[in-house]
C-alpha cells in the first residue's frame, strides 16, 4: 500500500529533474556543427580599405579570434570594452572582426567612437560570410587554431567569465 503511494511522488520527482534540466538550457545557444571543422574560406574586402582583400590563408599559422559584430547590434556594445581591453593587453592573439551586414560608414564611426580592438575587420555587406560560418545571432566569437580549424564558438556577448574560463585557457593550449 505504502509503495503505491510513493509512485506519484517518484514520477513527480522525475518530472522535476527533467524540467530543471530543460529550463536551465538556453535554447538560443545552438551548438555549432562547425566546431572541430576547418573554418570556411573567405576572401573579402576589409572595412577600412575596400580595395584590400583579406583571405583565410593569410591567417594560417596563428591562433586567432573571429568576432562577428555590427554597429546596429546593441549586444555588441556590451562586450566591446572587454575586447578593447583584451587587445590592449597585447597577448599576441589577433582579433579579426567580421563586420556583419553593416554600412561601411556606420561601422567605421562605431569603431572610432568605442575603440578598435580588431587587427582588421572583414566587410560582409550581404551576410554571405556569416552564412558560411553559421552566424545567426550577433555577436558571435570563434576561436580558430593555427591549422585554420574552428575550436570554439561563443554565441552572444563575451563576458569576463567566458573570456577567463573558456577562451583564454583554450588560447594558451592552442598556442603552446
Amino acid at each position, binding site marked *: 500500500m505504502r509503495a503505491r503511494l510513493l509512485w506519484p511522488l517518484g514520477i513527480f520527482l522525475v518530472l522535476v529533474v527533467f524540467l530543471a534540466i530543460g529550463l536551465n538550457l538556453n*535554447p*538560443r545557444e*545552438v*551548438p*555549432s*556543427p*562547425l566546431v572541430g571543422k576547418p573554418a570556411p574560406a573567405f576572401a573579402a574586402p576589409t572595412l577600412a580599405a575596400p580595395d584590400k582583400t583579406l583571405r583565410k590563408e593569410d591567417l594560417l599559422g596563428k591562433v586567432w579570434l573571429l568576432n562577428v559584430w555590427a554597429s546596429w547590434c546593441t549586444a555588441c556594445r556590451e562586450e566591446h570594452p572587454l575586447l578593447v581591453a583584451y587587445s590592449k593587453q597585447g597577448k599576441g592573439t589577433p582579433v579579426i572582426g567580421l563586420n556583419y*551586414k553593416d554600412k561601411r560608414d556606420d561601422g567605421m564611426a562605431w569603431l572610432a567612437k568605442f575603440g578598435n580592438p580588431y587587427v582588421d575587420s572583414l566587410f560582409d555587406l*550581404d*551576410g554571405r560570410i*556569416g*552564412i*558560411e*560560418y*553559421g552566424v*545567426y*545571432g550577433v555577436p558571435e566569437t570563434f576561436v580558430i587554431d593555427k591549422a585554420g580549424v574552428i575550436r570554439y564558438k561563443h554565441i552572444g556577448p563575451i563576458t569576463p567569465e567566458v573570456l577567463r574560463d573558456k577562451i583564454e585557457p583554450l588560447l594558451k593550449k592552442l598556442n603552446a
Partner: protein
Amino acid sequence: MLKRLLLLLGLGLALLGPATPLLAKEAPSAAANPEVEKRMMVLAAELRCLVCQNQTIADSHASLAEDLRQQVREMIQQGKTDDEIRDFMTQRYGDFVLYKPPFKAQTALLWIGPALLMALAVGTLIVVLRRRQRLSDDAFDPETDPNLEADERERAPDAHR
C-alpha cells in the same frame, strides 16, 4: 440557385485576386521564375529560422531568414538538389535547422520517445486490467471492499440497499 453559385464563384475570385500579387511581391529578385520560387518556399518551410526559433524561414521576416531564402533560391538556380541544399544548411547551422531532424543515435529518443511512452501506458493498462480480472466480485462491492474505511463504506452510494 445558379445565381447564388455565380455569386460564390465571384467572391472566390475576388479573394484569390489580390492574394497572388501579394505573394509575388515578397521576392522581387526571382519573380521571373515561379518554378524556382515554389521550390524555394517548400524548402524554406522545412527550415527553422534560428533568430526566431519557432518560425520557419518561409514565415519569418528576420533578415537572416531573408538571406537564407535568397541563398536557397540561388542554389536552386545553380541546379542543386533539395538534399544538397538541406546538407548545406545542416553543415552550417546543425540538425536544429531542420524541422524534421534525421534519425540517428542523438535523436533516437526524440523519434522513439512517443511510441515508447505509448507502449508503457498500454502495458500498464493491460497489467492493471489483468489484475482486476483475477479479483473476486467482492472487491468491486463497496460494502465488502477491504480497501475502504468503515465510514467510506457508509457513504458509498448503494451501501444501504
